[in-house]
């Protein structure tokens, strides 16, 4: 059984048809990458999966049940974590509080889970020294690490990552990449990644290429041809 199955999804922004009949699957323990240039609907797809946007038709099946009728926070509690583009750190909350909020998705929520798992500091050691800082004061890269850490604290079954390396220094990109890989290996969760950096794309198992709101190509990443890259990623 697939962890996530998206069938014939159509999403509109007002009147503009953004997603046009998207089909996609993600399995546990698998990293799936969504490629395509800016503005082709990758973010819209992730938002439709987490529930921030309501598709006009189509179906989203997660962990065996249809979820398109339930609200985002229930989707989060059922095991989908979302790291949006631009990180969306809660700016005036401290790093620690931001991390704590990640555990809201666990059973019992924040009331029962008050201790931040130390595995997070193993993955992102830098967070430990900034616990008392305001989330909004961190640099972009730190915020990105915080956002991923926050998502992981909810022990999700599926992680949605939207351009985690965008606008981030190369050395941190390395850290993030290895952290994500490590998590998949250790916990066996599924990851759906939106990425433009080929380097990161190559680390994933499968890819879907999007253009103008639809999936135009898909397959194993190791079979990702230069032609496809030229067509969908380069300038």
């Amino acid at each position, binding site marked *: 059984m697939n962890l996530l199955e998206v069938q014939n999804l159509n999403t509109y*922004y*007002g*009147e*503009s*048809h*953004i997603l046009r009949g998207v089909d996609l699957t993600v399995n546990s323990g698998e990293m799936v990458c969504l490629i395509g*240039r*800016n*503005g082709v609907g990758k973010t819209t797809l992730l938002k439709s999966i987490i529930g921030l946007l309501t598709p006009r038709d189509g179906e989203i099946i997660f962990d065996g049940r249809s979820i398109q009728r339930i609200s985002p926070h229930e989707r989060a509690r059922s095991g989908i974590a979302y790291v949006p*583009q*631009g990180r969306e750190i809660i700016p005036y909350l401290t790093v620690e509080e931001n991390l704590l909020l990640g555990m809201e998705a666990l059973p019992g929520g924040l009331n029962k889970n008050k201790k931040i798992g130390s595995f997070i500091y193993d993955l992102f050691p830098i967070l430990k020294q900034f616990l008392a800082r305001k989330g*909004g*004061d961190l640099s972009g890269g730190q915020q990105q690490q915080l956002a991923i850490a926050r998502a992981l604290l909810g022990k999700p079954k599926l992680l949605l990552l939207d*351009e985690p*390396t*965008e*606008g981030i220094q*190369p050395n941190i*990109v390395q850290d993030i990449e290895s952290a994500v890989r490590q998590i998949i290996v250790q916990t066996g969760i599924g990851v759906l990644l939106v990425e*433009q*950096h*080929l*380097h*990161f794309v*190559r680390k994933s198992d499968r890819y879907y290429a999007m253009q*103008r709101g639809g999936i135009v190509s898909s397959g194993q990443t190791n079979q990702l041809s230069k032609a496809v*890259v030229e067509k969908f*990623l*380069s*300038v």
Partner: protein
Amino acid sequence: MSLSLLELNNISVSFEGFLALNKLNLTLQQGELRAVIGPNGAGKTTFLDVITGKVIPNSGEVIFKGNSILGIREHRIARLGIGRKFQSPRVFEKLTVYENLALSVSKPKRPWSTLFGKLNKIQRDQINHLMNIVNLQSRSNISAGLLSHGQKQWLEIAMLVGQDPDLLLVDEPVAGLTDEESDLTADLLKSLSGNHTILVIDHDMEFIRRLESPVTVLHQGHVLCEGSMSDIQIDPQVIEVYLGQQEEGSK
């Protein structure tokens, strides 16, 4: 050698410590069509905000037709001849297509003249002309809110042209458009250039290519490089910005 219409010198803008624009320099010549691309967060929208007076830069200079326009209020900058099309189409949805255009065409823009004055023949002709250009003449009495997404984009471009600005700033005109619509938009912009100076921001490469114009690449708040589309495509810096580290890709 024509006079440069717009010059941005060393513009820097920071928002609460985050540097949105970093010593940006850019010059536009009269009648030029210029495309600006760049990854998300490169500062494209902020750069338009600076030109139109919405954001006042921390340092640097904006010279339009030889005069500095820093600190002038938005509606005055608009009257000086800079028009802007927003990212998502912002037309006045409760007004009809004709009324939308009438607002942009009418001059002067003081309250009394809009209350007492009437549009003259030239202006009415111009509105019809504009509706012809963007193919909306059959919809002239329909509320703009009822138009399709693409039609709204065109209406907004038409409104922009109707303002008769010397400089048109066009932000993401083809977001959410079909292939056919975006091709039409490119043709429209091309046909407008020459009479107008146009700056287009978009990240649809198909569309930018079709514009056949010089391209400026923004990255992290400054200009990474400028050149024709074919030059840009092989520029290693640009490829890095767009594709990540090169060595992986070339393997």
